[in-house]
């Protein structure tokens, strides 16, 4: 199992003036899931395109299933399943016809391809829509059909480029379930995402890319430990204008106050007895505390710390971690505005 199934070694790629990859290296052991995480334009898709023989790197090496991607692209194509970011389906064919076509073009006999297509349509809950033209499918249905197409040949290596981008929460959960089932079956999976919770939920290891470079690499847990900051949130019984000033010295950072003045939050270094100290200080100031929560860093915090920038669009899908408003994304700007208001 220690075999490396996907290997990127010093990949460089430019499109005209735009440098998409500036020396990206990572590897994925057989049977594991790698989450390639980064904002839009980080180079995730370019890396996937090179590994799936769709693009040639300007420099660097790539191996998939032990095969040199540059020297033997045709051999690599027999080992991989690919679900690209934009669903790559034939809109004028039905879902079933799409799958049968992909099967036939992959070397299956028509009968074989039909059986496998029926199986996958059932698995992805597309059986009812199987004989409808794909042009009329919803975004979630297209994604699932695209996933089904990538699984048709039961490939040992699978590439999913942002499999849930643009999906509603229900479709997203469904895609997650499918991916979880897959990972139990020994498939090696590379998954790109701009959603931290998605990488956290599905990946064994995470490689964070930004501006075409790897800026972090580790298990979700290791990455969280690397960012030492935790997050504290205090809910008061009634609005207290002075509360932010009371806890500010203890948390050593900026305190955000919610619009109604009841909730205070701040990034903190984890310290023993922090919650006790905060409650005591507020109590001494005559303020009633309803609730206090010290939260370990989420990948949002990690990502924010690593890139020093907002995470475009990550807010769209933050529901699944169950955390309150994360640090990255559009929420961050609001929190800072509030905090400035509180300090003024």
């Amino acid at each position, binding site marked *: 199992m220690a075999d490396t199934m996907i290997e990127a070694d010093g990949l460089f790629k430019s499109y005209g003036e735009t440098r998409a990859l500036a020396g990206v290296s990572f590897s994925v052991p057989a049977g594991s899931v790698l989450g390639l995480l980064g904002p839009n334009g980080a180079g995730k898709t370019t890396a996937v395109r090179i590994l799936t023989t769709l693009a040639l790197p300007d420099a660097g090496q790539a191996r998939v*299933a*032990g*095969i040199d991607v540059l020297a033997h692209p045709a*051999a690599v194509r027999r080992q991989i399943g690919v679900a690209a970011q934009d669903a790559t389906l034939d809109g*004028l064919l039905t879902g079933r016809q799409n799958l049968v076509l992909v099967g036939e073009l992959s070397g299956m006999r028509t009968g074989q391809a039909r059986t496998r297509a029926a199986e996958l349509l059932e698995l992805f809950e597309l059986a009812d829509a199987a004989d409808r033209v794909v042009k009329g499918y919803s975004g979630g249905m297209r994604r699932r059909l695209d996933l089904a197409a990538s699984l048709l040949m039961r490939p040992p290596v699978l590439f999913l480029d942002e499999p849930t981008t643009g999906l509603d929460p229900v479709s997203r959960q469904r895609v997650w379930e499918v991916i979880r089932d897959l990972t139990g079956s020994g498939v090696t999976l590379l998954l790109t995402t701009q959603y931290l919770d998605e990488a956290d939920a599905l990946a064994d290891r995470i490689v964070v890319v930004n501006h075409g470079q790897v800026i972090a690499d580790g298990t979700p847990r290791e990455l969280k430990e690397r960012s030492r900051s935790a997050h504290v949130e205090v809910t008061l019984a009634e609005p207290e204008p002075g509360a932010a000033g009371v806890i500010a010295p203890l948390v050593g950072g900026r305190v955000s106050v919610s619009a109604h003045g009841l909730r205070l939050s701040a990034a903190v270094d984890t310290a023993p007895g922090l919650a006790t100290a905060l409650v005591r200080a507020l109590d001494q100031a005559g303020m009633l505390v309803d609730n206090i929560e010290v939260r370990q860093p989420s990948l949002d915090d990690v990502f924010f710390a690593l890139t020093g920038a907002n995470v475009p669009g990550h807010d769209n899908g933050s529901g699944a971690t169950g955390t309150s408003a994360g640090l990255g994304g559009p929420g961050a700007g609001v929190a800072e505005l509030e905090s400035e208001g509180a300090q003024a």
Partner: protein
Amino acid sequence: MTPAIAQRPRDAAGTRPITHSAAERVRNVVSMTRRNLVHISREPMQLSDVTIQPVLFTVLFIYLFGGAIPIPGGGSYTDFILAGLLTLNLVTSTMGTAVGLATDLHEGIIERFRALPMWRPAVLVGRSLADLLTACLCALVVAVTGLAVGWRTSAGPLPIIAGFALVLFFAYSLSWVAACVGLNGKSPESAASFGFIVLFPLAFVSNVLVPTQHMPGWLQVMADWNPVSAVTAGARQLWDNPNPSASIAAWPMQHPIEASLAWSVLILAVAAPLASRYFRRRTTE
């Protein structure tokens, strides 16, 4: 399970490149052809240029020009023009190949094809075969419409079929030129302009609609050496229809069948490899 799977490609890699057997290639081409035919069945209006247009052209030209154009050497204009209409319709319909390929390149589906272990030229061959099948439908429509408005031939069944085959073969070779255009166009719309800029002049500056005898000298030379004229004269000769070009000294007009076959083979030999090179270039980044 995984180690066993990982082992297999390692043995295959490096020792010999993966190739496709003839049977695999044929199966890929059949799949792609079928796909393109399904497309046509979904949007039947795509077929208008091989169904409605031939009927319109046939009726229009025969009744508009029929009485006004004398045929050197005699014979009816209806019998004269039918081979011309067949060529005209088939030549202009090759525009569909350009538009179809350009459309494919703009859809995500081409990415799917590229990541599959398929025989890639099947994308092009499947397109050209589907277009050949619609061209056959077009030929049938022209023939039936022609018969309905009075076209007659005294030739036997074999020469009649040979006449249709001659024109269809030329259209097939021309569809590879259209493929080159479609693969180089920026969009399906720009591929469509190929029809108006290249195909219409090519089809009209010929003996398709009128005998070339009455053209100005320079134009007549162009028309007599235009492959479209050779193909049309070839069909007329095979069908025993009026063929005024037979009295013209230019070599292609004296040997129209040989000339049109030569043109078709030449065009195919140049355009097909060129198209697959453009395809490779267009799908490499």
